[in-house]
């Protein structure tokens, strides 16, 4: 008699590489090797005496944010302090809003051309070449746009075109628009299979398929992502201040320079409040599309067509929000602050021309022979480029791993499901103290995660640098804290929305919540944890290319250093090196995530 074939459990990435324990150990090993290779020692985490004193003053100032100028009004006609704060806040908001509106346009156009699911079935040769051409060009441009951080775009625009209030808007719209284009096209293409089955099978043309199948199916995800991007735009707009554009980041740096810590906290609080409010608004919009808010159903028994039409479900909140959003956007565009000393367009054009001349590698400028570019590039790489690239990578990886581990552990306190009395819809006994204790931990950890993810990592790194001194730790910690907050939210959604059935068994067998988490839930959602982890790692690589601008050797530092010497060719080289690093990170992350998805679905 033949042996029964062995039962095959669905594979996980961990089982492929020898088990989850091996994976966790691997991650920890990678973390510490990154730290070691970057020359960072855990011992340098100890702040100096000055650092301790500063942290103390910092914390003390936190409870008394300034409501008026700390050292008196700076000049006779200075506006009241709170007005200054609100003006800076409005400028930050305005730039974010204007950039997002442009980014949406870029996103739709780019997304359209980066998607192939609307192509007609049998195009003739010229059309096919044209379509493929548009597709490849669009994908290339979108990837290039995304790979350069908005701070670097701002630097480049200010250098190439001179001071202009549009610099901040353009600087954010380019990478954001390209990201939207990529994500939109991915979301839409993901639905192509279903749409094809649904609509093509009853005779729809590919374009109809795309418009009425893929788009509506992807719509909720696209909207959700756009709202998330807007929140990020607020943060990016805030840190534009570090390159001289007067958004809130600029005032934070100034306040620190003047050592007005109370004012600093006012800026921080108002920035956080703005970001948190916009997140709440985004949540309310999303809830109406997720079906979390049930629409009213008709009360009467046999409604006629007319009655049905008049009782159509409509969301007043959506209409009001949409109207206000539109009005505010138009208002923001019409009120972009004028350049104080506007330059003529001829001037800007000649500036741009000379910029393009100067970014040609110096030896090529002198000799006119592009072959000279190779030794120049090799030299830059050998001298500092490779080291900086690696440093950037180490910082990003260390931060991502720390954030990931922190987020996984934080679920014990932050997950709503694990911290209710009725976890997994199962009665777990009656205890008032435990009920309140759990409520407290849940609220407190949610709050911590919220603050962590709402704080721009650049500002966190800047403040930590003052306390810990010029090592790479502040950059890593700043990145790690911000991503910890983000991953915490993503993970808690995973844990809370996962079907409860399998996990329940652990509780029903007498296990406690910690056992249930590590023994039952974690194995089930581990693949998706990794998915989010690699997605955030990719973003960390991108962010760490600019964190070096705060003064720590890495790509960002080399970029500002080149700018200081007016060596624009070196500047472009390092910018492109950064873009290359981000691109590689993207590819790696994409490949790993594709593999994870395969394993998830098997």
């Amino acid at each position, binding site marked *: 008699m033949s042996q029964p074939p062995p039962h095959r459990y669905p594979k996980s990435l961990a089982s492929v590489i020898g088990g989850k324990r091996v994976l966790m150990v691997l991650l920890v090993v990678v973390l510490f090797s990154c730290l070691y290779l970057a020359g960072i020692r855990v011992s340098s985490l100890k702040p100096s005496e000055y650092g301790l004193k500063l942290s103390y003053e910092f914390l003390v100032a936190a409870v008394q944010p300034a409501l008026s100028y700390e050292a008196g009004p700076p000049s006779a006609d200075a506006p009241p302090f709170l007005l200054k704060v609100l003006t800076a806040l409005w400028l930050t908001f305005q730039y974010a809003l204007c950039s997002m509106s442009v980014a*949406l346009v870029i996103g739709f156009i780019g997304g359209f051309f980066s998607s192939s699911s609307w192509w007609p079935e049998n195009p003739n040769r010229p059309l096919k070449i044209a379509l493929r051409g548009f597709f490849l060009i669009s994908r290339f441009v979108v990837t290039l746009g995304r790979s350069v951080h908005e701070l670097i775009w701002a630097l480049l625009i200010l250098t190439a075109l001179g001071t202009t209030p549009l610099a901040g808007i353009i600087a954010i719209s380019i990478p954001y628009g390209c990201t939207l284009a990529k994500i939109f096209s991915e979301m839409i293409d993901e639905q192509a299979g279903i749409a094809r089955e649904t609509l093509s099978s009853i005779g729809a043309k590919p374009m109809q398929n795309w418009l009425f199948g893929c788009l509506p199916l992807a*719509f909720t995800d696209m909207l959700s992502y756009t709202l998330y991007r807007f929140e990020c735009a607020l943060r990016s707009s805030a840190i534009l201040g570090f390159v001289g554009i007067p958004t809130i980041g600029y005032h934070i740096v100034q306040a620190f320079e003047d050592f007005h810590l109370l004012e600093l906290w006012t800026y921080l609080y108002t920035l956080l409040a703005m970001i948190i409010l916009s997140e709440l608004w985004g949540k309310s919009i999303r809830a109406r599309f997720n079906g979390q808010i049930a629409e009213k159903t008709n009360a009467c028994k046999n409604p006629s067509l007319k009655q049905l039409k008049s009782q159509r479900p409509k969301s007043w909140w959506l209409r009001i929000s949409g109207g206000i959003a539109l009005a505010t956007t138009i208002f*923001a565009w019409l009120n972009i602050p004028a350049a104080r000393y506007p330059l003529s367009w001829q001037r800007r054009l000649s500036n741009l021309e000379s910029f393009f001349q100067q970014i040609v590698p110096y030896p090529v400028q002198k000799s006119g022979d592009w072959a000279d570019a190779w030794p120049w590039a090799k030299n830059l790489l050998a001298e500092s480029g490779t080291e900086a690239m690696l440093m950037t990578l180490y910082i990003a990886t260390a931060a991502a791993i720390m954030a990931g581990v922190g987020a996984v552990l934080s679920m014990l306190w932050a997950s709503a499901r694990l911290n209710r009395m009725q976890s997994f819809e199962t009665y777990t006994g009656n205890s008032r103290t435990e009920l309140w204790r759990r409520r407290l931990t849940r609220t407190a950890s949610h709050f911590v995660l919220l603050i962590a993810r709402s704080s721009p990592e650049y500002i966190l790194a800047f403040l930590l640098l003052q306390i810990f001194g010029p090592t790479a730790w502040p950059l890593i910690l700043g990145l790690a804290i911000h991503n910890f907050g983000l991953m915490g939210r993503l993970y808690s959604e995973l844990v809370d929305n996962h079907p409860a059935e399998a996990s329940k068994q652990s509780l029903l067998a007498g296990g406690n919540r910690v056992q249930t988490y590590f023994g039952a839930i974690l194995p089930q959602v581990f693949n998706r944890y990794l998915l989010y982890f690699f997605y955030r790692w990719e973003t960390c690589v991108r962010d760490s290319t600019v964190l070096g601008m705060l003064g720590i050797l890495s790509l960002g530092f080399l970029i500002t250093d080149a700018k200081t010497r007016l060596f624009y060719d070196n500047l472009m080289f390092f910018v492109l090196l950064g873009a290359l690093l981000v691109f590689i990170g993207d590819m790696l992350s994409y490949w790993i995530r594709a593999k994870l998805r395969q394993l998830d679905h098997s």
Partner: protein
Amino acid sequence: MRNQSLTLLALGAAFGLSSCGEKSSPAADESAEIKPLVFSAIPDEKVSDQDAKFQAMAKYLSATLEVPVEFSISADYNAAVQRFKNGEVHLVWFGGLSGVQARDAVEGAEAIAQGAEDPKYKSYFIAHSSTGLAKSDEFPAGIKEFSFTFGSPQSTSGRLMPTWFIKQFTQQTPEEFFTQPVQFQTSGGHHSTAKAVESGSVQVGALSYKKYDSMVADGELDPTKAVIIWETPFYADYNFTAHPELNEIYGDGFTNKLQKALIECTDAEALNAVNRSQLIEANNEEFEGIRVVAQELEMLR
């Protein structure tokens, strides 16, 4: 109904884009009004202080030259050079290196004035009292082991010349010489250097002698906490550089008029802006030495 909000937002974007644009401020209209002369300075100290102080200089120049004069702060050294280069500002109080960079970028730009003592400028190396270092006439090789900061990366007295002297006296670049990584003050210039050393957040620093002296004189800095341990040899630093377009905009000979106004200035408040007791003539050749140093250190091409 398809989601209205998104349609609205998209419409709004389209609408918004079509009505965007830079609005010119009234000051830039090509009406019969005279264009204001905009001047700036490198932010080698706290920007808020600088802005306040330079108002007096603006008033003085305005009265003397009979054209409206405005001061506009620059975000960093590079911004000052950039703005001069694209004609956004026509007169800048530059340092040595930034002045050379600016005059290289704009043909016909002239250094027209400098402080009376500026041909003989120097830097101080200062140390926190806890280092136990004392003033010496020799180059203080003992600073090797301590944490060190320059001023702004583009500063002459805060970075270029100290680097040069370190190289001269130790045959090593600062990165090779110091055991701990070298720091820069990304904002606040000499003021930040002084404060950093005084508080102990960094142990040794290099900065402009003038800034140190005036901070001590104003009681802003405690010289017992931030001790001078070495004075560098002399070099030329700081100047007012004028854009060649000035003569085009305001008429022939305007630059000479400007130079005269600066040199003959006796307004104490105005001179306080640049922290000098008197201004004298300057010319481009004086700063050739800076150029040579900068090229040697690969700060300039």
